């Protein structure tokens, strides 16, 4: 048993000056150095004795780390250290990527969202990260800077396991690039917590739908799930069903069943696997119905 009187251990703090310096530090001290942005996760874990880095390297002040840029021809470029509140309230995000704003707004509490960053939320690679399903259905790319310069990692390839991401040694996240979205799309992120606010997701479901005449149903849907598998996942079977035949209540239900089947949750203090699976179906169904209603209204 961990004695219940934790405390923050002593550590060195370095405010990074350049990306190259960060890469250098990461390469030289792979186990002792941790990157630091909002600190809302890492400081808590350090206080609880779960992490004991010797050095925290603060990267949120590096150029571009808190920049939000929208180019109508390219899409959204989001600095990795952008706070949840900054994302949720940015006009370009609210207008063009409301799903991302909605997801960012469900993270913890308002006070936490002032500190917590979108990049940090993703880099933790927690299966429960609220922005992860949004990033997956928006088909974003995560831009890593490392020893050999910049590379782009598709969101669907980024999450490898609980706390494990696709970064190579010496890499850090600098940006999240979100492409322009398909015309006429609508999205929802539905999150189930134990109480109405501030909780971690027991289940999170993101749905993005848009007209697409190249498929049988004339509509494409992307569905992603949080907190019900070792990583945030896309429910690809559900997406296939929705593309494959005309959208009816029955199709929506079949897709929701398929989403449930894609979930492999665990039992823990927060909920049972059985409940989580059932909630994937219920929330997917609800999100699909809402998105479908919005799509139908326009077309």
């Amino acid at each position, binding site marked *: *048993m961990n*004695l*219940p*009187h*934790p*405390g923050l251990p002593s550590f060195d703090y370095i405010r990074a000056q350049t990306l190259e310096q960060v890469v250098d530090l990461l390469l030289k001290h792979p186990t002792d150095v941790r990157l630091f942005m909002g600190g809302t996760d890492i400081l808590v874990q350090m206080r609880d004795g779960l992490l004991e880095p010797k050095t925290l390297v603060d990267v949120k002040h590096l150029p571009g780390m808190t920049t939000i840029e929208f180019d109508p021809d390219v899409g959204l470029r989001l600095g990795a250290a952008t706070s949840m509140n900054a994302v949720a309230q940015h006009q370009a995000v609210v207008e063009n990527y409301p799903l991302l704003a909605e997801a960012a707004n469900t993270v913890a509490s308002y006070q936490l969202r002032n500190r917590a960053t979108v990049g940090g939320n993703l880099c933790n690679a927690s299966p429960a990260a609220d922005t992860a399903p949004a990033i997956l259905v928006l088909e974003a790319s995560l831009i890593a800077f490392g020893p050999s310069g910049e590379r782009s990692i598709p969101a669907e390839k980024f999450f490898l396991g609980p706390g494990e991401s696709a970064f190579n040694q010496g890499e850090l996240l600098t940006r999240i690039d979100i492409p322009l979205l398909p015309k006429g799309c609508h999205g929802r992120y539905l999150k*189930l917590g*134990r*109480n*109405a*606010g*501030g*909780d*971690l997701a027991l289940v999170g479901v993101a749905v993005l739908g848009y007209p697409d005449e190249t498929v049988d149903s004339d509509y494409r849907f992307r569905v992603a799930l949080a907190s019900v598998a070792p990583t945030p996942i896309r429910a690809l079977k559900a997406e296939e069903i929705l593309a494959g035949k005309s959208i009816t209540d029955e199709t929506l239900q079949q897709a929701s069943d398929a989403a449930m089947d894609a979930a492999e949750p665990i039992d823990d*203090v*927060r*909920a*049972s696997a*059985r*409940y989580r699976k*059932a*909630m994937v179906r*219920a*929330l997917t*169904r*609800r999100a699909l119905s809402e998105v479908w209603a919005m799509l139908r209204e326009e077309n």
Partner: protein
Amino acid sequence: MDAVSKSHVFPSPIGESVTRVDALEKVTGEAKFTDDLQFGAGLLYGQVVRSPHPHAIIKRVDVSRALALPGVRAAVTGEDSDDHIGLYLKDRYIFCRDRVRFVGDPVAGVIAVSESIADEACRLVEVEYEVLEPVLDPLQGVQEGAPLLHPDLGEYVVADFIDPKPGTNIANHFKVRKGDVEAAWSKCDVIVECDFRVPHVQHVPLETHVAVARVDQTGKIILWSSSQSPFAQRNLIAEALNMSQSDIRVIAPYVGGGFGSKAGVSVEGTAVVMARKVPGHPVKMRLTREEEFYCAFVRQGLIARTKVGAKSDGEILAMKTEYYWDAGAYTEYGVNITRASGYSSTGPYRIPNVHADSYCVYTNHPVGGPMRGFGMPEIHWGIEQIMDMVADELGMDKVAFRLKNCLRGGDKNVTGMTMHPIGLAECIEKASKAINWGEKAPASAPHKRRGKGLAIMWKAPAMPPNAGSSAWVRFNEDATVSLGIGGQEIGQGSFTVATQMAAATLGVPLDWIHISAPVDTKYSPYEWQTVASRLTWSMGNAIVQAAEDARRQILDIVAAYWDEDPNDLDVKDGQVISFKSENAIPLKDMVVYGLPLPDDQGWHGGPIIGHGNFMPTYITSLDNETGQGQRAVVHYTTGCQAVDLEVDTETGQIHLLRVASAFDVGKAINPDQVRAQMEGGVVQGASTAILECLQLKDGVPQNPSFTDYRIATSVDIPDEIIPIIVEVPQDDGPWGARGVGEHPMVPTAPAIANAVAAALGVRILEMPMTPEKVFLAIQEKLGEA
């Protein structure tokens, strides 16, 4: 308008929602809490080594490596615990001597120059344990051959109304045998039997426990603590350390939330024992939130087996109850919760035949202690659900069923006490009407179900028969008043109510009254404890008496000065007036310096100080075998809550639309504060009903932080809370008042459960009604159908 006639319109502050007297201090940050106090460079920090095992023998404790760490000043072990401590049953050492009984039990303590060094030193203390089989369930604990937690139970000092069973894990067994239950069943047309469970929950006060102790060079102790019971702490620590009460001084600043967790002694004892090792140095102990979950009091768990029978016309004939309290490692306080639940086991119903057994069972779980409601929220969870089930079986409306059977003034209750006048029926009528009882209302969506439910309750202050209060009032030169009380302001508004009572009795403006705070056992008048919703009533009586004493002195002095009869005089708006002569004199002219006698004959009077006390003198004991007696308690506060809610059948989430909360408070001294208690009770009650549960696995809390111990926040509260004040006066209450601090959380959970049952036809028998539990119950019902 002249001065005299103006004073006649001076309004009494009683029954007025005056602004809280501590509001400005608290919103500006001026109010001092224990952790705000500064102790200078000599301050040391205490930290405690705690047992990782639920049950073990301590073979060896070695603090030598901890002592060698630079910055460590001293260490303590069980050897430094002189004697047992405990409120009703002295069953624990401050630091364990031979055995640990729960995960978190204090084994050793270190005192260091900083908290972090103390933490580090704790890790250097070596403890060797011989692990014992634990008791993790009260039903296991009562079985013959179960591991014994307290083999010395028979040796412990115990209050005479507590009945421990040495050689078992039963720390108290309370019985009611009234009428003939077995004979009554055959006369019943409907009998319902059901078990209910309540898990451990925690008080989670905003301010965690904190105490600073200093022992001076002569051995006297000063303790600064966030405390609901400065005097009880002084007394218990004195007894545990074989000291005189006058050699211990407890100073108790504002408390950032108590709910019972800061009653009695917990962390304070460890601070005192550690401070004795470093005379001259104050030693600070403060619990982290995690420690709060492990080591502070929890609300006891409960398994309730209940059977109720009624005739077809709705009359309840018999009730049989067995309560198994999961009381934890030490039951020094919990034994009286067991007793209170026994003598309240019928709920506020008139039932001629009663058979009740309430067992306080030692388990290797966190220590059960007092929490808002003192057993009543736990037992009403079952009582109020089974009453609904009986009404269902009878096909009777639940409001009508309760109105038919609820206690009224003059009825004999479960222990044979004649009930004083109560407004319970009025509460039932008003609360049910407030949610349009009987009218069907549609749910807001096809996948939602709407339901209404209600629950009634009673609760008496559970305390020793002779728990007393005292107060003094002291006039200052300008006729402002220092009001001395020993009751604590724990957020419930006691200082405001005390101020209103003193001002009303003395006849001075409200803002002339200043509470002499913080409560300091060296200067403040005695108060048993700030618990049991007893201050407005008990301390209020003492304040009124003290103020009347001062007022009498004032009138005598002025009457002599004017050569009038004191009965013709009064104090209004800060001046003494005569109805007869229409003379008037401001209080400031006489309350300290007295008044000259006529013709230069000298002076009369002197600084005015009034004192008063109150102690109930009419409580009698209960028969050990039958639980019957003349008057077991001072009074019962009663009430009713009615809930209108809807349930999302796809997720199991409960949404509270309206909660009406009606309580008979005798007299609302400050109506807004009464309403705030009702609102707070509903929110805390709903929080325990839907969210809260300290998950214990092999005695180890699995969710000891707010990440996974969820409590209701502002987004979770009902859309509407409708507080309703009912006033049927208490004969010995000030202005007829009785307490209402705890009561509004008592019926909330069963009222919600009853509304859920009405909405879904599904009954949840174990708290909390999490979305998951509700959803799975719906699935189970669908599966059956």
